[in-house]
């Protein structure tokens, strides 16, 4: 087995990828920890150490709190709506409760192939009060006094949630479908013999056996929700009146539009700490022995 013990050769194989990874991922992330403690306008490499100054400034910044609130709002709503819809679709498709299941499986996934930018521009058009499809559709039913969907805080936030849901459901549906298809058919046969209906087999077989996949998708949804950027930036640019501003768009604005690089990184660090601890928390809450068939 001397072949596989050739450490020097192995190192030569690993090194190029590792150097790349070290340079462009590890180094920036490591630096981020340092940068969040400095005041830095980015023109030169001159940084002024402020200790926890940036954090103090953040605590007193109402826009930070507003962005945080909006981010949580988007994450919670998508985190509830997306898995519910995806699970419903996945069950109906796998348990053959719907005709044309294959067709729906394919089409529902379409939005996941499109750039978030394209999705956002597409819906920005579709929600246009004059020629957009939503307004025109509602006019067919005699509604005339329609709002400018992206121009009013309440509607704009609802629109962001709706578009995020539209963009995500297909992906989660595919994940749930694969998990359900992994459940042995015998379990469902046993249910049938016991006289259980579709709802009961869902509650007593499908749902408990999906716990592992729920854990994974829970973390995905969390990361996705807290990272909300593209859709907001394109559709509303955080407006109107910062009603849709998220932490990610606020970080971008501070760093690349206002040049407050240190402060932006402080917020990014906060975003990371929140996401990371919530992810760990959700894994801990959902901890359970994994199922082996």
């Amino acid at each position, binding site marked *: 087995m001397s072949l596989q013990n050739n450490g020097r050769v192995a*190192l030569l194989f690993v090194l190029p990828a590792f150097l790349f*990874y070290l340079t462009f991922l590890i*180094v920036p992330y490591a630096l981020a920890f340092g940068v969040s403690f400095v005041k830095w306008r980015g023109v030169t490499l001159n940084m002024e150490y402020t200790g926890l100054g940036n954090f103090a400034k953040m605590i007193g910044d109402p826009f930070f709190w507003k962005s945080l609130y909006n981010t949580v709002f988007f994450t919670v709503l998508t985190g509830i709506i997306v898995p519910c819809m995806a699970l419903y679709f996945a069950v109906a498709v796998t348990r053959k409760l719907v005709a044309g299941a294959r067709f729906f499986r394919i089409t529902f996934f*379409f939005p996941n192939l499109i750039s978030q930018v394209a999705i956002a521009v597409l819906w920005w058009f579709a929600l246009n009060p004059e020629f957009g499809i939503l307004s025109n559709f509602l006019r067919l039913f005699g509604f005339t006094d329609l709002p400018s969907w992206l121009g009013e805080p309440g509607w704009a936030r609802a629109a962001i949630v709706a578009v995020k849901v539209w963009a995500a459901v297909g992906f989660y549906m595919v994940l749930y479908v694969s998990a359900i298809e992994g459940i042995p058919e015998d379990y469902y046969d046993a249910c049938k013999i016991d006289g*259980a209906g*579709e709802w009961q087999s869902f509650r007593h077989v499908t749902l408990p056996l999906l716990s592992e996949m729920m854990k994974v998708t829970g973390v995905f949804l969390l990361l996705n929700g807290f990272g909300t950027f593209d859709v907001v930036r394109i559709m509303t640019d955080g407006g109107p009146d910062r009603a849709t501003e998220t932490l990610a768009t606020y970080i971008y604005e501070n760093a690349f539009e206002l040049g407050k690089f240190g402060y932006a990184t402080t917020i990014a660090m906060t975003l990371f700490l929140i996401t990371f601890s919530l992810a760990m928390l959700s894994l801990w809450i959902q901890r359970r022995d994994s199922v082996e068939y």
Partner: protein
Amino acid sequence: MEDENTLDRLFSGARRIITQCVFMVYGVIVVFPMIWLGYTAFKPTSELFASAWALPVEWKLDNFVEAWTEAQIGDFFWNSIFVTISTLVLQLFLGAMASYALAKYRFRGQNLVYYGFLAGLMFPIFLGLVPLFFLVKTLGLLDTHLGIILVYAAFGIPFTVFVLTAFFRTIPTTIMEAGIMDGCGHFTLFLRIMLPLAKPGLTTVGIFTFISIWNEYILALVLLSSSHLRTLPLGIAVLQFVQFYEVDFGALFAGLVIVMLPTLICYIVLQEQITKGITVGAVKG
């Protein structure tokens, strides 16, 4: 239990109909905006304002021509092609080399390196964004295709290593030994024998990388500024901002069609593989 069952039977017929309706309605919500976009791209903006639903009076390619030339979508398209392919080649090659060594050799610090790579899957892009920007700037690679290709490839390495290491582990070691017997060097062995055997794994990673790089926005936004270097998503985003003030949407509609088609076609052709790939990524990740 009995009650629940009776209810179940009573409603099963109605439920079937409702479910079918829900699927059809949601199907329309998913597909119709794309179809609307598709045919509106052939209409002049004046027609769009006159009647938003109607099919174009004449199917003219004017918008596409305008988009491709005047709005620079043609440039953005070739930029996207160049950046995506270069990233794919670099990332797959480097990633495959590393994965091969991690799967088939034993060396000190192996686990540390492997989990070090996987940790990269956990970090949100926004945390490293500012330092990354200055790093790329310091290296003199800001606003260059080379810079963004290197960054994309580096960001793709964790996923590549994750999938390909698992894949290389399934290839029997005896094949390696046979290769060495035949007088191959380690690198020839990798290039001529192992890499071709890993083709299914490479395809999976390749498809996902293609889709994600083709659609990527935030890194392009931060790392590219010259208009002639923009990739499609970045170019479209800028175009939206500009056309909002000019109220001329034709080129933008056409641009959207151009950015959407390649990945949709890729999916329709490789649908099975993509679906399988997502599951592999999620279950093991």
